[in-house]
């Protein structure tokens, strides 16, 4: 009897495994995009879309008032759910948006009045969504976009804090739906970059019925007006999106930048969006499976992992012959970012000694750094503003970023530490990853050439964040990716009112810089503002609160059957992609 049970167990297991072996993957639609996410998607609520993974997924289902033109560079804002760009008052403080009529939310059970059919979008939905971003109970990571900008919104937030609950019926003077399709936003002061906020996932419009119906579980649902509807969501593993059948009438752009037509990027001009029928997103936290899946043709777009770079790219930085013969395309594009070493300016040693910082900047050679850690995929940064943004001067050469060990040693003498004598080891804080460890070893070697010793303290990511925000450590490495395509997003990193725990983690404070920054906020994009930006960059170059590192260049691989692909630094591009496999 006992043996019989054992055999039954064995046979059951064998059947289970044979069933598993013979089960075939489901048939997929021909126009299905298979995309990778490099990290877990923590949720789909727009007010928490603060990382690239959540931002990208949120933008498939949700939309805001504005968006970036898919093809034009530099980036240009165009209407999304707004009928047109806003009317701006003479004092440039009030923006009036007309909302597109007939736009429907996704069909969802939370729309009880319409029997589960998505209802029409109205201006009130934006008022509600913006208030949600300000609701202190929800602790949105996007509140900084509206903080201190819209008249009456901070007061509404403070009132909610006092009462312990937000009153969504209470009016906000600077946020008004003057009729069903008209939204008025009144700013407290001029802020040209405010419009960029309206193209970010944080400010996407949500339906109150869905938020209230799903409660805490709202972040696992996606009920927007966007091009795709959520079919499946497993944050650790995969997301399935299907074309939204009730999507508004939006078409593929009919103009782009130079070279787009030749690259076939205008072939779908005027065609309805989204171009793909379905998107399957797989989360890959490790490089090898993503790379092998791409090579096997089951992933449509891929970055090139550091360890596979030589396999994919020739020494001349072109695509390898193997991949070229398979029709794979290599897309190179500079990213809107900057890496840097940060000096803690509130530290009595590094913060008070400009010559020491300049000497360290002079000796930190970008050439080997770019080859060693970026496989040549980066440009040496001369200042904080990356190429592609107004304010970046391609001809400018930072005098303290031209490797010169002799001059660095002279500056060490001026600093009062000839050959590093008398200088205590500087506390260098870092995270404990393998790449960070290698970069730290590089920094130790480089700074040692002028007698600057580093004392390394490695932390977990939360501990590192805590140390930086609490102004511990004297030097550390960081990177900043643009939230929106405006140099202001980089220059605010040195504004004294943004000092730690804010984004100015170097705690740089220069009244002249602050004055120029505040002046620039009131200026529209143009020659005058660019001139102010240059003055600000000059101050930073001389004061050296950062050692400017690199602006990275993205190398992406695209399968031959993917059409309309153009890399974007911002979210929401997948509605333009199409898949056309050979029959």
């Amino acid at each position: 009897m006992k043996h019989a049970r054992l055999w039954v167990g064995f046979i059951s297991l064998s059947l289970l495994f044979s069933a598993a072996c013979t089960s075939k993957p489901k048939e997929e639609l021909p126009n299905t995009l298979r995309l990778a996410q490099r990290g877990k998607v923590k949720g789909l609520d727009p007010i928490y879309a603060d990382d690239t993974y959540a931002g990208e997924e949120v933008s498939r289902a949700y939309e805001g008032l504005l968006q970036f033109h898919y093809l034009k560079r530099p980036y240009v804002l165009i209407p999304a759910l707004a009928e047109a760009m806003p009317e701006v008052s003479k004092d440039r403080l009030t923006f009036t948006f007309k909302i597109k009529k007939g736009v429907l939310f996704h069909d969802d059970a939370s729309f009880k009045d319409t029997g589960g059919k998505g209802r029409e979008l109205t201006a009130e939905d934006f008022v509600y969504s913006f208030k949600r971003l300000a609701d202190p109970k929800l602790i949105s990571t996007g509140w900084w976009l509206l903080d201190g900008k819209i008249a009456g919104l901070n007061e509404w937030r403070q009132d909610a804090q006092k009462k312990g609950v937000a009153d969504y019926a209470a009016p906000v003077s600077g946020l008004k739906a003057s009729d069903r399709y008209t939204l008025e936003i009144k700013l407290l002061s001029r802020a040209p970059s405010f419009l960029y906020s309206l193209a970010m996932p944080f400010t996407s419009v949500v339906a109150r019925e869905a938020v209230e119906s799903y409660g805490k579980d709202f972040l696992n649902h996606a009920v927007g007006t966007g091009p795709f509807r959520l079919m499946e969501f497993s944050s650790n593993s995969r997301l399935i999106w299907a074309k939204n059948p009730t999507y508004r009438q939006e078409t593929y752009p009919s103009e782009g930048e130079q070279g787009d037509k030749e690259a076939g990027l205008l072939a779908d001009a005027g065609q309805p969006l989204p171009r793909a029928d379905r998107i399957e997103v797989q989360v890959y936290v490790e490089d090898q499976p993503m790379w092998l899946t791409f090579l096997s043709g089951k992933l449509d777009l891929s970055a090139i992992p550091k360890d596979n770079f030589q396999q994919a790219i020739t020494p001349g930085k072109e695509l390898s012959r193997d991949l070229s013969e398979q029709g794979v395309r290599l897309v190179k594009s500079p990213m809107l970012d900057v890496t840097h070493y940060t000096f803690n300016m509130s530290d009595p040693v590094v913060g008070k000694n400009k010559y020491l910082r300049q000497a360290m900047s002079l000796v930190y050679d970008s050439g080997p750094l770019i080859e060693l850690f970026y496989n040549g995929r980066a440009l040496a940064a001369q200042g904080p503003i990356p190429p592609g943004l107004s304010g970046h001067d391609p001809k400018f050469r930072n005098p303290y970023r031209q490797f010169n060990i002799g001059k660095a040693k002279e500056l060490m003498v001026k600093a009062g530490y000839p050959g590093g004598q008398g200088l205590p080891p500087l506390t260098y804080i870092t995270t404990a990853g393998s790449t960070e460890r290698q970069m730290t070893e590089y920094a130790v070697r480089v700074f040692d050439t002028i007698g600057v010793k580093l004392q390394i303290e490695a932390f977990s990511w939360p501990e590192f964040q805590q140390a930086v925000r609490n102004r511990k450590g004297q030097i550390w490495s960081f990177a900043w990716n643009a939230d929106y395509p405006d140099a202001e997003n980089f220059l605010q990193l040195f504004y004294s009112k943004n000092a730690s725990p804010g984004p100015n983690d170097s705690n740089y404070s220069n009244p002249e810089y602050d004055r120029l920054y505040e002046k620039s906020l009131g200026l529209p994009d143009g020659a005058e503002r660019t001139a102010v930006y240059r003055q600000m960059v000059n101050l930073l170059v001389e004061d050296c609160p950062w050692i400017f590192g690199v602006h990275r260049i993205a190398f992406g691989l695209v399968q031959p059957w993917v059409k309309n692909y153009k890399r974007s630094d911002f979210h929401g591009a997948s509605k333009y992609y199409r898949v056309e496999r050979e029959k």
Partner: protein
Amino acid sequence: MFAYVVRKLLNTIPTLLGVWIVIFVLFNVIGGDPTYIMLGKHATPELIADVRAEYGYDQPMLKQFFRYLGETVTFNWGDSRATRQPIATMIHDGLGPSLTLTVPAFLVTTVFSVLMGLLVAYFRGRWIDRIVVIGCVIGMSVPMLAFILFGQYFLAYKMGLFPIHGFDPAWPERFHHILLPALIWVVVSLGYNVRFYRTALVEEVGQDYIRTARAKGLGELPVFLKHVLKNGMVPILTNIVIEIPMLVLGSFLLESFFGIPGIGGITIAAINNSDFPVIRAMTTLVAMLFIAGNLATDILYTLVDPRVRLK
């Protein structure tokens, strides 16, 4: 037996309390502050104060500890600080994929290990024994990561025998995706288990009662199945029961490389983010499973060895 179980359960209270104190100190006094992870790069003093007030981080440490203790004993896990997902939902969603991988792999490993242990105990000292022992040592020496990289590259990518990556929640498709990770689990686990079971069984083979059984003319198969296996079951059972709670935790490496949305990945992400509520939930869950496992082992001992009495 009832009195024994009650006494044993009461004895677990100080153990659990110790676990909770260690976790609390590790992640509240020594570890990083999850506030900065929650708020991202645009944190302001005002926002930080809001978060601290909302989650009670601004309260005295002792008050925080008692609140934490209250939430723990009432199984009020709350929400993840990093993902804001309800922790109960995270565990519920992760448990299925983890167990889909670990349970079949564990069953196969256990059955094979015991059978191989019996086989090499029978052929003790002969070439088959030596080959298996050498194989076990190699299996124990090679890290799991090497098996994963090899399996993914050769068996999945080059030979196309298995999917490279991914997980399908549908049945029975999910088994299609866990075949390769389960195979790697089995290969990695076999080395240690076979050696351990071999040792336990070889010890029994040398006992006087086995010689007696053989002397009275019993065949080798009944000797091994009825006497050697049954008497060698106590250490085997201990090993098996210790492994069972770990099945719930899944395998971080396998889950990461194969895209299985299990508990292993959730736990590691929580540790990396200092996501204290998730870590607390996981440690409590595992501690309780271990305690239950130990209790079950004690009870099972009485079934396989009549000399054992629970008092």
